[in-house]
């Protein structure tokens, strides 16, 4: 296959690929928006702006007595040794 033929195919792939990706993710936009309308909200909604569950842990750790943490690490260590 000569190079111009390949380039043509690559260009075609680029076009088809980007169209497919946009169509697919665009479809998902519609789907998610529809679901948001159809599904009732939680009574105690899950806050959407927590990316990870680690955040509260990290926060809490600032308030905790270091001696307590030491005691806990000991316990965790013991726990781990038993497992």
């Amino acid at each position, binding site marked *: 296959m000569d190079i111009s033929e*390949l380039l043509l195919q690559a260009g075609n792939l680029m076009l088809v690929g*980007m169209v497919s*990706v946009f169509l*697919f993710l665009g479809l998902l936009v519609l789907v998610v928006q529809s679901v948001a309308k159809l599904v009732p909200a939680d009574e105690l909604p*899950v806050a959407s702006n927590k990316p990870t569950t680690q955040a509260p842990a990290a926060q809490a750790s600032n308030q905790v007595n270091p001696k307590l943490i030491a005691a806990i690490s000991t316990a965790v260590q013991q726990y781990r040794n038993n497992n």
Partner: protein
Amino acid sequence: MDGLITLWHDTGIYHFEWKQLVMMAVGALLLFLAIVKKFEPLLLLPIGFGAILANIPNAGFTDPGGILYYIYEIGIGSTVFPLLIFMGVGAMTDFGALIANPKMLFLGAAAQFGIFATLFGAIALNLIPGFEFTLQDASAIAIIGGADGPTAIFLASKLAPDLLGAIAVAAYSYMALVPLIQPPIMRALTSEKERAIQMEQLRPVSKAEKILFPLLVLFACILFLPSATPLVGMFCLGNLMRESGVVDRLSGAAQNEIINTVTIFLGLAVGSKLSAEAFLSVETLGILALGAVAFSVGTGSGVMMAKVMSRLSGGKVNPLLGAAGVSAVPMAARVVNKVGLESNPQNFLLMHAMGPNVAGVLGSAVAAGVLLALVG
């Protein structure tokens, strides 16, 4: 003392060829990047170590019967390892920010232009003597622009196993370099005023929406792009285990023991493909160059799309968010947050950038599915 002579004839020193030494140096460089520079150490440490082991003369790590041979054949030859990693990543991903603001999916789509532009670029490289990339090779190289390790390894193992080592190394290295590659592009394409745009707070997302999301993504994929269902399906399985709340034991296993164990073996297996014959070629240089192009174009196209959305929305979208569309979770989102804070110290974009960031993961899995269907 014939024994000592036998031993001597068996030593590495006696058998070394310079190419193997170079490949060991490459392995050592990857270890240096992983340990000292902290570049994606979870992958680059085992990859670098695997590269060293694979290039030891006379040790047979990659011959049938060697441990790296088994690990590669069982884990990557079968595509099982990247799919298990994807399941674990799914179990660790919170789609809340994306569900709250689904238009961010367009940013995840736009950033995939990095993939397809690179595909074209890889074919264009054939104009230079010495390069002879097939469409399969070019597609596997281009997926580096997806900024997603397991997707790149999955596609490369299907389309161009010989290039897998170089492609995986390029993908993880550039992911680690995101904080260096992206900011200049982001600054060049946006104005100070645009970068300072603050976003509205995201709405709360219900548990039901989070549970339905992976199922609907899978369903759309089944209907329109079955070739992407291995990747998307395992990802959605992980996410469904996470969000359903009824199988915490399994979700925990996917996020911890399975992904950790598989990561060690996946890294070693990728490293075992860093053999001198496959890696020490002009093609590797091409792959590294194309990978940099892929990340840059993806960042740029994401930002441009975000600028369009910013205009259309009357300035409610910060164009920096587009850069997060390449995925490289969560690095790209952090970069967006950092660059945003430079222009406006009150501007916390991290949560908003998680939307396009996870959209980018879906986007590159979809792109991989398209490539598999058309050139696989």
